[in-house]
């Protein structure tokens, strides 16, 4: 299946989305499986090897941002849709799960589904009103939808406690695993890895399915795709809704992991969107897995230079600028140099 996808999506072999057009598909897949396997083994065994609270929380943020970056990539890298209101969708997932737990006593576990469902519905709605617009209008519209969500949360303190912060209960203990606040964060890490693996496998399948093909066709040339009688808006809507729903699941995880929600710009506003977007762009658009390398690199830089204060954010911005100008394909471009 792998080779037929790249062959059909890029008849002239120049499209940037073709994974590795010169390598034979079978060998590539074998190699990919080995690499992903190594990555998964690393993800499973590295954190307990250190078993250090601080390091574990860093591993958690690497995986968390890696997943978010990959979800963003599903939109921008495969369908060419930029959601500048991404953090707003994350907020919807987080708050819907937290508020249901608080008001209706639902468990945090069902909260993952609630977060995903509500965020998916909001994503569908946002998509319905925005996806008719193209390019910059879409970017601006999603930007304002995101801000609207955040500001609405912020201005309804009677329900959400606004900027005072909403306290959220952790995941309930399950299968003998302790998820309470004082417990070892490794349990949260493994929960995240399981969640991430499910999401990544799903998205990996998705971009190789018919839907993935259609999205790439739309991204390359929407007019041409429309002349082939592809219903552009519907396919984009599918992409947008799926991505929003997955984001909502992650938002719900975030709420119960973190314990306190506040609609600040750095949490659920432009700041957060910029972080995720940087991870996706630096990782390389249209690569999905590249996000994890970018997240590891960026969060590694951030933690290593913690003493530098604001300098690390300057570094972040400079990196984003350099990537945009000189390496628009992101880290994934260097992958081939290593092979």
């Amino acid at each position, binding site marked *: 299946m792998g080779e037929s996808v790249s062959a059909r999506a890029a008849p002239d072999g120049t499209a940037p989305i073709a994974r590795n057009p010169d390598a034979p598909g079978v060998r590539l897949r074998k190699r990919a499986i080995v690499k992903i396997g190594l990555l998964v083994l690393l993800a499973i065994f590295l954190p307990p090897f250190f078993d250090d609270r601080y390091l574990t929380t860093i591993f958690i943020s690497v995986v968390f941002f890696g997943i978010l970056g990959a979800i963003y990539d599903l939109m921008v890298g495969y369908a060419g849709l930029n959601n500048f209101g991404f953090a707003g969708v994350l907020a919807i997932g987080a708050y819907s799960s937290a508020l249901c737990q608080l008001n209706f006593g639902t468990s945090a576990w069902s909260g993952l589904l609630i977060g995903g469902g509500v965020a998916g519905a909001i994503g569908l709605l946002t998509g319905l009103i925005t996806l008719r617009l193209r*390019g910059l209008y879409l970017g*601006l519209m999603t930007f304002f939808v995101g801000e609207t969500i955040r500001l609405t949360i912020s201005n309804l303190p009677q329900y959400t406690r606004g900027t005072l912060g909403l306290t959220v209960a952790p995941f309930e203990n399950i299968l003998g695993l302790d998820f309470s606040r004082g417990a070892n964060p490794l349990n949260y890490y493994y929960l995240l890895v399981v969640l991430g693996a499910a999401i990544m496998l799903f998205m990996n399948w998705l971009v190789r399915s018919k839907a993935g093909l259609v999205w790439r066709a739309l991204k390359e040339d929407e007019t041409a795709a429309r002349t082939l009688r592809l219903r552009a808006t519907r396919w984009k809507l599918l992409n947008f809704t799926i991505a929003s729903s997955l984001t909502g699941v992650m938002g719900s995880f975030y709420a119960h992991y973190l314990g306190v929600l506040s609609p600040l710009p750095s949490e659920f506003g432009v700041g957060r969107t*910029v972080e995720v977007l940087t991870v996706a762009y630096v990782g390389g658009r249209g690569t999905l897995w590249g996000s994890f390398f970018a997240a590891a690199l960026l969060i590694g830089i951030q933690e290593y230079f913690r003493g530098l204060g*604001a300098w690390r*954010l300057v570094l972040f*911005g400079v990196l984003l*600028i350099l990537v*945009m*100008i000189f390496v628009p394909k992101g880290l994934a471009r260097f992958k081939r140099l290593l092979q």
Partner: protein
Amino acid sequence: MDWSMLADPDILMVLTLQGLVRGAMYALMGIGLSLIFGILGVVNFAHGELFMLGSYVMYLVVSILGMPFYFGIAAAAIVVFGCGVLIERGLIEQLRRRAGRDWISDSFVLTIGLAVVLQNLAHLIFSSRQYGVAELVEGSVPFGDMEISVERLAILGFACLAVLLLWTFMKFTRIGKAIRAAAQNAEAAETLGIDVRNLFTVTFGLGAALAGVAGALLISIYPASPTVGAEPLLKSFAVVVLGGLGNVSGAIAAGLLLGVLEAFTIFVASDGWQNVLTAYLVILVLLLRPAGLFVMQGKRA
């Protein structure tokens, strides 16, 4: 909330004036953003940081060097113009040259990176402290039970002056005419011998300078700090959408309209809700009239 207060002409007058002052800033920011979009096609996410630069320059000139405030405004215009030129030549042109067809959405992301850099550089240099100037002009004008400060009126006056200067520049100078020509059709302008590359740079500088002037003018209301640009940025996006992307006169009208609307919202509801109202309004306009409020449907500005 006592709605009958809105029937009081003095209150109406003061609210409208306050709204116009607010709106003048939105308009200045919006015009700059719109100008840049209209000519270069770039949505400048770092526009709020140019506002911030202007306010720091104002503080340095007025409070540290002790010069009169109009020097500060002029200095802000010149310095931020220079920054705009550097940004266009150093970054945006590089991107345009290297990236292909999709460079427009890439440029959005590029300016996001730039905004992060500028904001945190300001943080490093000036820390997160707020640097304000107490009052540029003293005194106030009474309206019945309420009053409005002379300073606010002065801000409104200077904003009008800046717009008037820009209008004169665009209408009567060679460069201004060339910019308007390029806005209509950049390729045709190039064929007629206009150096579009330099034009892009000048336009970006001009748009930046307007943001700088806005930052300088409003220093007593928005003291200089690294994050001061966030709200003006949000509002200038709103203005540009309401007025129509790339439509400069639409930005002026939309800016003033939005300012007055917000002044009334703050009075009727409470502080904070004006931002919600603006965001909903923008979404509504994008849905129903994506070309902007003031454009005949189907006609491009």
